[in-house]
């Protein structure tokens, strides 16, 4: 998917979300007016008109339920395709879901989040920034997870693109939200990367025990990255014993050199450390 195609898709997505919001308001107002009318003017309610109204409402409801079900199936299919690495096919399905009709825009917004994660997985950060920006333009009040994930992906990609200031702006609203443990686990590596890039190692070394506790719950490469970043922060703060301990742990979780190639925040840690590979065979 080229940038132009993505821009077109995001424009149609934006239009569809607005249209859904308008239709939803109209539907609610219509139902409310019907209820009031049938209450105040029951004598004028012709039986055939009443039957017709009930049928229209019922049919409309069934049609929208079927369409929503169809969209949910399409979204599920896209997720399966993403899981099996068929990214291009998945993006086609996600595009269809994002521009589909339903009474609630929830499915479209979730599909948009998946589209962003599909680009993030391929390190296409410009696209991730565009998609997450488009997603965050909409009200995501009841979809807290989508909002949090969009902000995390946005901050991650902005850091990759060296746009540190904007990454800070993307992260700031998250600090006011009550985050789940899973969200805190996703936030920690990104926050540490930001703090190190912004030249604030003291911040990164604050609440060291709590940060290590969360890092221990991460998968091996992420745990290694967080430990290496905490080691760097400790080293800069003169906490050498802690830095040494953390770097040993980082090396035990995963090889740091491939990680350092991807995340320049830890490049100097691996250069300065130059320690042996913990995974080396036994003597």
């Amino acid at each position, binding site marked *: 998917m080229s940038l132009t195609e993505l821009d077109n898709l995001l424009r149609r997505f934006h239009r569809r979300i607005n249209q859904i919001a308008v239709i939803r308001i109209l539907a609610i107002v219509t139902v409310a007016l019907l*209820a009031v009318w*049938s*209450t105040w003017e*029951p004598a004028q309610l012709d039986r055939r008109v009443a039957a017709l109204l009930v049928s229209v409402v019922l049919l409309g409801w069934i049609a929208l339920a079927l369409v929503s079900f169809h969209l949910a199936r399409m979204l599920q299919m896209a997720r399966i395709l993403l899981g099996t690495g068929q990214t291009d096919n998945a993006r086609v399905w996600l595009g269809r879901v994002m521009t589909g009709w339903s009474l609630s825009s929830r499915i479209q917004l979730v599909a948009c989040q998946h589209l962003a994660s599909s680009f993030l997985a391929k390190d296409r950060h410009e696209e991730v920034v565009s998609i997450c920006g488009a997603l965050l333009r909409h009200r995501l009040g009841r979809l807290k997870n989508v909002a949090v994930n969009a902000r995390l992906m946005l901050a991650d990609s902005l850091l990759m693109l060296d746009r540190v200031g904007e990454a800070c702006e993307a992260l700031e609203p998250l600090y006011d939200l009550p985050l*789940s*443990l899973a969200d805190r686990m996703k936030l920690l590596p990104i926050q540490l990367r930001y703090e190190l890039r912004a030249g604030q190692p003291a911040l990164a070394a604050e609440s*060291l*025990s709590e940060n*290590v*506790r969360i890092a*221990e*719950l*991460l*998968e*091996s490469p992420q*745990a290694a990255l967080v430990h290496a970043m905490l080691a760097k922060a400790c080293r800069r703060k003169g906490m050498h*014993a*802690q830095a040494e*301990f953390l770097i*040993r*742990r980082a090396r*035990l*979780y*995963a090889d740091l050199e491939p990680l350092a190639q991807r995340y320049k925040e830890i490049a100097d840690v691996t250069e300065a450390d130059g320690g042996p590979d*913990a*995974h080396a*065979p*036994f*003597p």
Partner: protein
Amino acid sequence: MISKELAEKLVRTSRPLRGLHGSRMVLLGIGLLLGAALARPEYLTQSGIPLWVWPHVVLLFIVAVVLLKLVRRQRQATLTLAAFESLQLQEWEQARRHLVKLLARPVNHAPARTEALLGLGNLAEIGHDYDAAQEVYEAILNEAVANPVQLLMTRMALAATLLRTGQTADAVEMVDRLDRTSLPDSLKAHVELVSLFREVVMGQAADGLVKADYRRALFREHLGTRAGYGYGLLAAAYDQANLPSPAQKCWADATLLVRADALVDRFGELAPVAARYAAVEHVL
């Protein structure tokens, strides 16, 4: 922490209700009343309440039932999340409280219920209540409503529990069957951990050392911090084979990730290793 009686009770109370109950009963009642009203509409007019009120009453009633169900589901989701977070953060007492509260009522969502039961079994293992853990794991397998990955995790947990409760033959058969199953590496790492535990418990660890490097790599890649348990068991295996140097290296790695007392608490079989080899000191 979790007695066998409590485990049995929670397995029973958390089972989804079948047939007519709660909201279904209420909706059936409304349906019957509407049917009766259609057959004899004069009864409704005789009540003195205007006719137009009835559809709104029925509608409000249905909305109330639906909202009540949503609130209950939301409460269960919140409790489930709180229980899993407590388990991950090793806040055992809190996890116990949340799980007991959650499983005291029917949980209709099968995967969520299985996860909660697996958490309960895990909690029982932490408290060394292996009979209770066995009860929970067997219930999950007997009911067979869990998804394939959950069933696999349950079999692994049950195999480890059987080894602790002395039902070695069943445990060996279960581990052998798991060993023969073709699995992705992320799941294979868990199987290898149980397999290694079996070898250590049965004193056959020295024979399995040919797989040591393979297992170590698998643990490192897929188990995160829990790889520490694998390294600890590898240390025990090297120790059984009278190879102190690699045993020391493995024990150092194990205790670098997980504190020695936590390792021994989880796997009592590591107590001799802890006594023989130096652990890494945690400076945090």
